[in-house]
């Protein structure tokens, strides 16, 4: 056990003496975080939110109250710092503004939107079927993915609340009608009343971009774009670190230090365990340095400290599993380096380091679950938005299971490898 620890410590020391490795492990994620933070306006000086005054064009063609409620939401005091809405009347003009990069997104509320959600008796056709559903269009600016994503998130949250209210009302009235507690006439009256209430409700609710944190007494926690960017970059370059560590196993074989270890009174398991421990320690050190540095320099609040620590440990564990698998399947250090670089970029893209997973198609979101990046980023975002340890159970468990499976496969593959032969 002691030798395993000593081998691990030696590897950490070597990793942090390698200037090229340090550039990838620490400088690159830091610089990219800084760059993306500048792009998203995080450092523009508004102090709280990383995003501010997002220009959005709203075209409300609806004559009902729900459409107006959505407009009111964007014009509310709660979102005054975050968004800068402009009202328009022509959808084509609004879309052109987006194409010309004059706003982050256009929200086009179609005519009859309210009545498609809460139909009046006059809206039903002769056959008794409900009027056709119409949908709000969010025309996003691809050059401002983060800002557009924020606008889309606000609209999605608004709609989900409307939908929840509508479905809840429908189910309740239906159950009362089936059980004979109310008559058909009473049901119609109750439905109309619920519709009226629903139309007036959304704007008064908590806003989509805020979540209520129980840890902070229900106070709203502002969204900081950097709370997404910084862990995204750190996790992407964590994959570099684990492949670098894996590469060191094969490098030690070719430079003769591994055979030398094998002829010392140290078992193969102690040596392999030490190498794995070294990769793990290096990854943890890298993540913690980036977290502390971004907290001090960018004033970034990562959230609950214990949650951050446990999530870092779980993420590095899973990433180390990938590093070991890459090494176990490679023959040369060059193969590990090439595969590791490819995996770093693929996992970075798949795991949401560049674009939020929510903005990706469902199949991509599904595939992203094989990456430590996606699970860990989910956890870090949760923490950044005020989540607590309880909220991290799923991502941490997923990361631990991932790491365990990868380690098991790697051990089997290493068993077939001749570590003594150069």
């Amino acid at each position, binding site marked *: 056990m*002691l*030798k395993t620890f*000593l081998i691990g410590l*030696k590897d950490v*020391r*070597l990793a942090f*003496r*390698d200037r090229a490795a340090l550039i990838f492990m620490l400088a690159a994620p830091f610089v990219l975080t800084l760059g993306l933070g500048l792009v998203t306006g995080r450092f523009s000086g508004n102090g709280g939110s990383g995003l501010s005054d997002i220009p959005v064009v709203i075209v409300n063609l609806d004559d009902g109250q729900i459409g107006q409620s959505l407009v009111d939401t964007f014009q509310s005091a709660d979102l005054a710092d975050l968004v800068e809405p402009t009202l328009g009347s022509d959808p084509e003009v609004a879309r052109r503004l987006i194409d010309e990069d004059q706003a982050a997104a256009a929200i086009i509320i179609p005519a009859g939107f309210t009545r498609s959600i809460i139909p009046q008796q006059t809206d039903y056709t002769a056959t008794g079927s409900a009027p056709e559903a119409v949908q709000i269009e969010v025309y996003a600016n691809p050059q401002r993915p983060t800002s557009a994503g924020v606008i889309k998130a606000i609209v999605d949250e608004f709609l989900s609340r409307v939908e929840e209210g509508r479905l809840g009302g429908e189910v309740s009235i239906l159950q009362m009608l089936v059980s004979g507690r109310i008559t058909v006439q009473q049901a119609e009256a109750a439905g109309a009343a619920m519709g009226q209430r629903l139309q007036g409700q959304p704007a008064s609710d908590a806003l989509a971009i805020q979540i209520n944190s129980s840890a902070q007494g229900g106070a709203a926690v502002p969204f900081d774009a950097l709370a997404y960017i910084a862990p995204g970059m750190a996790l992407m370059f964590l994959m570099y670190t684990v492949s670098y560590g894996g590469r060191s196993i094969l490098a030690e074989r070719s*430079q*003769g*230090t591994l*055979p*030398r*270890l*094998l*002829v*010392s*009174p*140290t*078992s193969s398991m102690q040596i392999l365990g030490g190498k794995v421990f070294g990769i793990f320690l290096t990854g943890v050190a890298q993540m913690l340095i980036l977290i502390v540095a971004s907290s001090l320099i960018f004033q970034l609040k990562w959230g609950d400290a214990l949650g951050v620590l446990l999530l870092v440990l779980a993420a590095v564990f899973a990433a180390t599993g990938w590093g070991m698998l890459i090494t176990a399947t490679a023959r040369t250090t060059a193969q590990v380096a090439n595969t590791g670089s490819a995996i770093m970029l693929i996992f970075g893209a798949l795991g949401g380091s560049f674009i939020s997973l929510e903005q990706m198609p469902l199949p991509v979101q599904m595939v992203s679950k094989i990456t430590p990046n996606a699970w860990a980023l989910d956890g870090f975002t949760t923490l950044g938005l005020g989540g607590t340890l309880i909220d991290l159970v799923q991502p941490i468990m997923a990361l631990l299971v991932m790491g365990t499976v990868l380690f098991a496969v790697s051990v089997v593959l290493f068993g077939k490898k001749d570590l*003594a032969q150069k």
Partner: protein
Amino acid sequence: MADILEVKDLVKHYGDFQAVKGVSFNIAEGEIFSLLGPNGAGKTTTISMLSTLYTPTSGDATIDGHSVTKEPMAVRGVIGVVPQDLALYEDLTARENLVFWGQMYGLSGKSLTARVDEVLAQIGLTDKAGNRVKTYSGGMKRRVNIGVGLLHKPKLLFMDEPTVGIDPQSRRAILDTVKDLNQQGMTVLYTTHYMEEAEELSDRVGIIDHGELIAIGTQKELTRQVGESETLVLHVGENDDSESLASALGGVAGVIKAEATDHEVSVICPEAEDVLAGVVTKANERGIKIRSIDIREPNLEAVFLHLTGRALRD
């Protein structure tokens, strides 16, 4: 002296290739034993099996009473290994390297610190112990490489061609270190393809070629195998056909054997003076100009040539 190493019918195959073909020999405690042979003869493979790095295809060896195949961990505790290629962490200092390797051999605390200081003094690097190994010269790296093998005071030290590719000064220092270690009681198994090193260091020599141990004994015992023969070394011009001269010299009266290597022809004969005139005549007949002639007393080179028909450096 009791034998510290007993090797019996050691065999190593790599697929169809037989790297070591049934090698057997013993080394007594306190001895310097050299395995002498050209590159690819099987020296490193033999040492790799004896140091438990490779598992023999068949055969076994015992070191200090422990079988290399059945008790590898016990064997590793009593041997030290100085590999042919440098096996160091170049981004660590010499002291950090020695401390790490000492820890791998179970040393710790004050005894580790004291031993590291001793070894640094022994290899002459006390003053530069805090410099990273990558800043050292080739010879200094070789000395650290040797130092690592000495940390735990092994009973038997394997040194696999430790002087390859270094300057004469560092080579001299390494050979002196080996002699010092031996005088302190350490048994050494030394592999080399330099005849001079084997002659200078060894109590006994094993000559290995193509994976077979073809001769073993003291230098006297081995040279006796080529009789009282001397070797006449003719240095010829770069454009001269040394092969045809060697072939022609085979027919000269008194010549036992003649072999050509790069711009030299080695002629083994009982008395050099007796054949000298005939040799020069044959060279003149072929228009080959002899630039210089050396007469060498019987040595391991001659033994190797006698046993294999090839020069050691081939």
